[in-house]
């Protein structure tokens, strides 16, 4: 498995544990007490490292190549996923997909950024960077969910909307802007989980939600740390400084009132246990669906309006 720099000491301890396990099965002498002690130490070390990640380390965890992606969540928790294709204008964007699904006993419309697991998948899915037709498809599915009276669950994991010539020609800005405007008035609950990267307008385009939840080590940012460093420090190598300054971690964003809840990840990060991560996500979504399902459509949209009206800090 790919290791991040700060994970190396953990990996070395894991190796030592494995070695000891072999020795303990081979040898007659009882090493189980020693093994147990080492395993506890390993767990402690993992906890310590993962509780004290810097912002830049969190960026790396959020972008981890083995971090669970949309297809994992669909496999683990969204049963009977029925994908619906196309924006009815131009095409079917594979970077942003959606369809009906069962989450536990709840009927939902699930929509999410669609990163891939390998180069081939990522090329097909444009590394989870949608073009305008992706956002237009997402809006079409949200309107459909409204008609069907099922809540909308969006899973955000994108470095951003695709910055390309064709996207500009087809109105990338308009597509995102339209979603922000229309989502404010959608009359069924909208729940968003930021599962990995919440990259700027490309993330927000499906994240105007009644509750915005974030996995513990995911990020949400107005601009990538590298992009910000390039502009405000005139040097992309200041990315880790920018990551710290931009306050992009779940904990910072909870403090700033941008998100509503942090979903815990397994010790050692989501990539160490995708199935457990998916279970945590499922539990958090179901709890929030209950919270909003009882509200009338007027109350729901008024509440959403008030929620976003209150965003921001300024001097009067």
């Amino acid at each position: 498995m790919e290791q991040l720099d700060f994970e190396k000491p953990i990996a070395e301890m894991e190796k030592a544990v494995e070695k000891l396990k072999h020795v303990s099965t081979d040898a007659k002498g009882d090493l189980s007490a020693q093994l147990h002690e080492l395993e506890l130490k390993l767990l402690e070390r993992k906890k310590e490292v993962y509780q004290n990640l810097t912002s830049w380390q969190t960026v790396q965890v959020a972008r981890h190549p083995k971090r669970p992606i949309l297809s994992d969540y669909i496999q683990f928790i969204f049963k009977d996923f029925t994908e619906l294709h196309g924006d009815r204008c131009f095409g079917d964007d594979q970077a942003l997909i959606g369809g009906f699904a069962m989450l536990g006993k709840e009927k939902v419309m699930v929509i999410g950024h669609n990163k891939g697991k390998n180069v081939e998948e990522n090329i097909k899915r444009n590394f989870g960077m949608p073009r305008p037709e992706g956002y237009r498809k997402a809006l079409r599915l949200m309107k459909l969910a409204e008609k069907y009276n099922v809540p909308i669950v969006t899973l955000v994991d994108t470095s951003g909307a695709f910055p390309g010539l064709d996207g500009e020609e087809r109105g990338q800005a308009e597509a995102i802007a339209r979603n922000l405007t229309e989502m404010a008035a959608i009359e069924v609950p909208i729940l968003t989980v930021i599962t990995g990267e919440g990259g700027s307008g490309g993330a927000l385009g499906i994240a105007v939600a009644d509750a915005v939840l974030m996995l513990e080590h995911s990020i949400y940012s107005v601009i990538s740390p590298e992009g910000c460093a390039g502009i405000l420090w005139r040097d992309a190598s200041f990315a880790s400084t920018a990551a710290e300054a931009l306050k992009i971690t779940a904990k910072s964003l909870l403090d700033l009132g941008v998100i509503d809840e942090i979903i815990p990840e397994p010790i050692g990060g989501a990539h160490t246990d995708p199935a457990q991560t998916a279970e945590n996500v499922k539990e958090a979504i179901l709890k929030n669906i209950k919270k909003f399902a009882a509200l009338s459509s007027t109350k729901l949209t008024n509440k959403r309006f008030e929620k976003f009206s209150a965003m921001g800090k300024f001097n009067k």
Partner: protein
Amino acid sequence: MPWFIQTKSERDARKKASDEMWIKCSKCNAHVFKQDFINNLNVCPKCGWHGRITASERIGLIIDIGTFKELNETISPADPLSFVDGKGPYPAQVEAARKKTALNESVVTGAGKINGIQVAIAVMDFRFLGGSLGSGTGEKILAAANYAYEHKIPYIIFSASGGARMHEGVLSLMQMAKTCAGISRLNEKKIPFISVLTDPTTGGVSASYAMVGDVNIAEPGALVGFAGRRVIESTIKQKLPDTFQTSEFVLEHGFIDMVTPRKELKETLYRILSFYNR
């Protein structure tokens, strides 16, 4: 000393006087008498290039004399992230912008009349931190939308912005959702919203209120687009043509209704507003 030899100080004085009287057009490089440029509303008399104007100049141009009432003029940026970048602390950058512009935020909002029709307006000023969309900007733009909503009067936003303000992090990103939520309520009440895109309208501003006008109007030659040109060029590994991401480009691709020269803007807005039949 012969009469035709100038001392350095004389030369500098002459150059300064000439700089004060003449400007060079950024588009066609023509030397233009500065007063002609100003009288022509900061539009080059030779080639029609539209230079940027301040929010107060814009209001003077569009709103009937003596009818403008400013709203929320005291709202100013806070420093929610205690942000420091390569140029120093954010509050110092804000202070410099306030000194330079005599504004408290990157937008001026209020109500006034266009040939007698009452409207709510928000006018962005590029001089204030690149017209960036911060929390204060978003609050003022939403408050003006709410004013239009409560008074059932049309709303017009004049955009001039590079996008969301990085110094306030995700709170700036949230302003895109916040302002659009205000526009959404106008739609629900069938109140017209007209977006005027001026140079530049990019990033988080183009991807929010600026692109969702019932009628979108752009000034000639304005930079209008989502991603930065350099970002796109490095993505597709191609040089982009000069005409890319201009008003004319987005008109051709169907995202704005018209390109209107500054001189005709007030009359055009008036004509569109006068069709409103509620």
